[in-house]
Structures are given as C-alpha cells and as structure tokens.
C-alpha cells in the first residue's frame, strides 16, 4: 500500500528529474555563480550561469541533496534557461509563494506545480527553494541587474 500523501510528494515528474537530472555539472564560461548550503543537513547546491544583456543564456547546477532539492534544481535550470533575469526571479518568487501557501497565479508556474505538495511538508520547503536561492545569489554576482 503506497500512502497517497507520499505519492503526491514523490510524483513521477519529481523522481524523474531526481534520477535523470538535466543540466547537471559545471558551466565553462559562467559569469554568475553561487553556492547555497543547508546548515541543518549539509546539503549543497551550486548554480553557474552565463548572463548577457539581462538574459540567462545558459545555466547548470552542481551539488548533492535530497530528491526534492535535486529535482527542483534540475527543473529550475530547464525553466530559466533563455529567460530574462527579471522573469527568472518572478518565477522563483511565485514558487516561494506557492510553498508558503500564499496566493499566487498558478499559470506562472507550469511544470513547477509538481512541487505543490511540498507545501504540506514544512521541513522540506527549504529543500525545494534551495536551488532558487542559489540562482538568486548567482544573479546578484553577475553584475547584470534585471532590465
């Protein structure tokens, strides 16, 4: 008997990204990078990006962590590649609102809605947001403010 709640959390999409992460590894030529650590568990996510003219040309991630953090990082790189810095930040903020149970335009989230069930696991919200925090910090280092 698989518990329906865990089932909701560990959806096909999430486990797929966990098992076969997209865009994992270092990014040669990156001009924006940051690493974020979760002090309670030691998990770490690094994000490297090439930002040009307010646009995220390419982005990859490194590090280890639980399925939620890994899948979130993987999906994030898919979602923000080719987006403007401003759009990427807005998407991250929308995800934060979704997981905090605050009102949010669901359409803005697309595939990221797979993380919706994480909101019911307060201990895991930080895992899902960790890659986005790393991206945020990386973008701050790029010297390319949002347009």
């Amino acid at each position, binding site marked *: 008997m*698989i518990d329906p709640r865990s*089932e909701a959390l560990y959806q*096909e999409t999430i486990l797929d990204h966990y098992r076969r992460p997209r865009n994992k590894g270092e990014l040669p030529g990156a001009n924006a990078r940051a690493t974020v650590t979760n002090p309670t568990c030691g*998990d770490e996510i690094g994000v490297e990006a090439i930002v040009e003219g307010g646009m995220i040309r390419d982005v990859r991630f490194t590090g280890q962590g639980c*399925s939620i953090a890994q899948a979130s990082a993987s999906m994030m790189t898919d979602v923000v590649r080719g987006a403007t810095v401003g759009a990427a930040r807005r998407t991250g903020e929308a995800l934060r609102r979704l997981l905090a149970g605050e009102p949010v335009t669901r359409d803005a989230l697309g595939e990221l809605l797979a993380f919706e069930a994480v909101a019911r696991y307060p201990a895991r919200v930080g895992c899902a947001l960790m890659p986005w925090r790393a991206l945020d910090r990386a973008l701050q280092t790029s010297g390319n403010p949002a347009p």
Partner: protein
Amino acid sequence: MRERFPLLAANPGLHYLDSAATSQKPRVVLDAMREYYERDNANPHRGAYALSVRATDCYHEARAKVAKFAGLADADCLVFTRGTTESLNLVASAWGRANVRAGDEIVVTAMDHHANFVPWQQLAREKGALFRIAPITHDGQVDLDALGGMLGARTRIVAFPHVSNALGTVNPVRAIATLVRERCDALVVCDGAQGAPHLPVGFDDLGVDFYAFSGHKMCGPMGIGALLGRRAILERMPPYQMGGDMIEVVGDEETTWNVLPHKFEAGTPNVADAVGLGAAVDFLEGIGMDAVLAHERALVAVADERLRGLDGVTVHGPAAAMRSGVASFTVAGIHPHDLATILDERGVCIRAGHHCAQPLMRRLDVAATARASFYVYNDESDVEALVSGVREAQRIFDGHVARG
C-alpha cells in the same frame, strides 16, 4: 513505560526514534517542575525569607542528586549550565583562554559533535595553537594508536565524546584518559551528552578533568545541563560569565570571586529546570543505568539485523554491542531526508542529516545519514515500524525507477 510519558501516551501511533536529539519527558519530571513553581518559587541564595530558603534547598538538593547520579562525590564541583554546549564553551573559554599559548596543540577526534569541535578549533585559531583531529577506524571507533601518536609535550587539551551521537560508538573513556596521562600533561575533556543519558558515568573513576551533559537528552527539561570538573582545576580557573551570585566583593576597580560552584554560575540560577533534572535522574535511577543500556543494546541489535537484511542498506559504526541505542544508516538511492519524510508519514520520527558532525560525515564519505535512536520508552514495535517504513520508501523510489 510509554504511559509514564504524557506525549507518548497521547500519541499511541507515534514511534519516536530521535531521543539522541532530545528525549521525551516522564510525567514525574513535569510534575516536579510544576510543583516547584506552585510551591517553592523564589530567587535562591539571596533572600532572607523562608520561601527563598526553600528555593535554595530545592536547588542544592538537585545539585546533590545529579552529582551522585554522575558519580561525583564533591557536589560543589558540579556547575549547572544550560547544556553540553555551554559546558564545553565554558571550559574552552575560561580554561582555554587562560592556559593555551601559541604553538600548543589541541586534539579532538573525528567523531566529535560540533559542540566539542568548533570551540576548540576556534580557540586554536585565536591562540595560534595547532588543532589536530584524531582519526577513526573504518568501523567508527577512535583510533587509539593514532591518537597516542599525536600526543606530546605541546599537547594542552584532549577532547573526545563518551558516546558518538552520530554512530552510537561507546568510547573507552578510562583507557583514553590513561593514554593521555601517560604521554602528556593535557586537560582531558569528555563530552558526555550521549553518555549520561544512556549508561553509568562514574565521574570520579573516569580519570577525566571535565565531563559535560544536557538534561533534555536524559528525560529532563530543556535549559539545564551540567559541567563536572576536578576541584583543583575549577579553583584555579578564572570565571566564565560575570554578574550576581558569582562575586565575593565588587570594588570599583577589582572584583573577587565566590567559592565553587557559585563562581561559575553567574545570574539567577535556573532552579525549576534543575529540579526537573533532579527528578529525571531519580526516574532513571529507578530503572537503573545498566538496565537502560542493556535495553537500548537489545533494540539496536534487532534494528541492525533487520536493516542489514534489506537490499542496499548500510548501518554505519561498530557492532551493536559496542554502541548505545543509535542506528545510523544509509539506503542506496534514497536520500536520508526523503527517507525521513516517508517514515514521518507512518509516525516514525528519525533524524536525517549530518547530526552536527560534519567532520565525521566527510570521513564516512556521506553527506548525511538517517539516524534512529532508541531510549527507555522504545520497544520492538518501534523497530518494526522503522523497518517497514524503509521498505515502503524503497518501494516508492524503486517503483518509479522501474516505470521510468
């Protein structure tokens, strides 16, 4: 036993396996604290009225009980602190700053909790001393030969845990203390956070200079712990925090210090939580510390066997007979966090993470482990729930792999 713990009695489906982080509290402990507040509460030491004398007596009685429990004959050498972390910081700051010089060496082990690692690391940095980390064997024990080889004329402090919180390894405290005494003239500091709750301590026979523990891990309340030390060292050591109760005379320019234990207890003491800790040691002595350890070892032996019987599960550390009630394990392909979430939905509380032992995790070459820790209120049904939860997690994760 469960019915003596209100939180467990109220949650029959709860399998609480995180007692190494903090224990649940028996009713007698909660009652003792409440009774203190409802009958005896006042500021001790300072009042000239009967209520304050009662509060003082409560506090002294708690000190006497806890000292006796830990095998310390001279109760004035027991300093009440907030917990292990504060006890160890007290020693590192008060003794360490006064005695460690550039070029000295401080030795800790690779299995120390951050509370018995970072204060020494930072003291070494501040003083220009050498900070050395004694290695562990492949099965998670202190490597005594290697430790012995590190000791020498410049060794000033040797710190190690009685029991590893991350693996459950019970260290041979007396043998380590003897080894240190043979080779050098160092302060020997034992982190007993996982010792005092789980096995007999016998401070006066251990041969260490300091021993620290926390009340909240041994059926006592949060906010109280102890530092046990040798009188000669405590008397020579400068105080740690300064304020009321710890002074003798405060002059405009100079101040003299009160006698032990007051010299190290600045400010209004935490009488209520000390009373709670006194009740907790009464409770534990009612069971007997040998019986506590035997109970935990029996459970952990079953847990080891059942977990090792599952595909892809590794239990870290030495054999169950050399551990207290801790089973630290990893499951291939499933991160400990994911495991903890899935177990939690089945009422099983375990801890996932580095267990405040990042240096150990690096040496075990894992980022994190899952840790189940057993205590007096656990039984085999908790082991069952743990094992079936792990199998469930494997089904969830493997099922998807198969479909993917």
